């Protein structure tokens, strides 16, 4: 088994601070499905592009790092036996049918701070 990160590219994130549960229904359904399938290791939904701040050596600017039509709206990490299996999971993301897409990247290594119990 190997780990893959799936980066979600959309015009913008649906997860606005004031998003209603109706706004997030498609995303949540997909997330529930993945969690149930046991392949998902972690998932992060990011706030919309207006909340982003970019940092370069000479400046701090408002907005996403790349000025493009799509931004990273969120990402998750899955476990899959091979790339074909990872791509099959990635393809089920609702953003693929909604004008956006996903990028699949093999994970090299990761760190999560152990939570205090």
């Amino acid at each position, binding site marked *: 088994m190997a780990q893959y990160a799936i980066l979600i590219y959309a015009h913008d994130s649906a997860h606005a601070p004031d998003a209603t549960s109706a706004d997030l229904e498609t995303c949540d359904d997909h997330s529930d499905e993945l969690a149930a399938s046991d392949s998902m290791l972690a998932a992060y939904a990011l706030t919309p592009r207006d909340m982003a701040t970019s940092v370069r050596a000479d400046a701090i600017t408002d907005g996403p790092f790349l000025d493009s039509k799509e931004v990273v709206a969120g990402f998750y990490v899955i476990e899959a*036996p*091979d*790339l*074909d299996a990872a791509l099959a999971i990635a393809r089920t993301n609702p953003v693929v049918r909604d004008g956006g897409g996903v990028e699949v990247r*093999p994970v090299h290594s990761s760190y999560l701070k152990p939570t205090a119990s």
Partner: protein
Amino acid sequence: MTDASEIEAAVADAHRREWAAVLAATVRVTRDLDLAEECVQEAYAAALRRWPAAGLPDNPAAWLTTAARRRAIDAIRHDAALRARLPLLVVPEGDSAEPARGQRAADAEAASARLSEAVPDERLRLIFICCHPALAREAQLALTLRLVCGMGVPDIARAFLVSDPTMAARITRAKKKISVARIPYRIPRAAELGDRLGAVLAVVHLLFTAGHTAPSGPSLVRADLVEQAMHLARMLRELMPDSLDVRGLRALLLVTDARRATRTDADGRLLRLSEQDRSQWDSAALAEAHEEIVGCLRAGPPGRYVLQAAIAALYAQAPSYDQTDWAQIVELYDRLLAVWPSPVVALNRAVPLAMVDGPQTALAEVERLNADGRLSGYQYLHAIRADLLTRLGRAGEAVHAYRQALALTTNEPERAFLVAQIQDLLDPR
């Protein structure tokens, strides 16, 4: 003792015919493309050394496979520690579980013994991994030539007009992605087979096209690429005899290549279809293609390749250019457009359309495609426009269109052809 040149010919023949099968079987043992390649290369070198004294083996492929696998097992045993750190190819079926790192050599031996009896053809795994959609098209082409056809890196580099180090780097990068991203070494499942086979056929077709009319350079044809594409099409036909697309592509390549000898004259000057000597066409290839196309059309609804082959075959079957069945060709183009709505197909349809409904109608169609913009960088759009304008007596506009085609053309014989057309229009004799 056997004659040395006879042995050399036998090894060369086994290289052409069996490379893919020997490599594919060896990859199953090594689970590493580089090591497998090295072992297969050594096995062929060993054949050159041993066969002169020992005589030709009854089954050269089996001899080569055994030799390559034995080397692989030795190498794995020898370098167990080093290899334990390398990412191995993912082989989903057959091997029930990932082998423990320490047991690699023993596992390879067991796999080797088990696979000797295996029936399904391993070459398909190799073809599908080389043409995986996660690899860029140029990497797919290079990997297929290297791993499936056994072509040397310098030859591949020359065929695509890049330097050896550039091509070597391209192949290395693709192999690294295969192992790091874990592109599996398997035949796609039924549900994904259509898409994945489409990529394989596109690679074979592109190789053929790149050879049939070389993108640039002094000669019209790159025979090495054409031959590798024909070889791949034949191999796929043997491995997937039920696929109409595979059979269609094979027929398309047969028909198109049957005209190779007549496409230029003795001086390398490009000849139009109407000027070519039909008696010199490869009639055996045309007959084989015809049988294949008829079989496909009977077997089910024809896809893109079967229809393209049928169109090419109709052009080739006419006793003379003037006796071509233009109306039926237009009809086949309509069916082709329905399954493959490509602007290039629409453009090619304009050629027989001019014969059926006249150059004025065809020109209107080409102008519509020109306005659309997607083909504005496609030299043949301007060349076809120029030809139709010439036939309509609009010489000035025709010269302008030929010049547009010329500016986009890099193949020398094609350039010479266009220059001659312009000269004829400017200076009618």
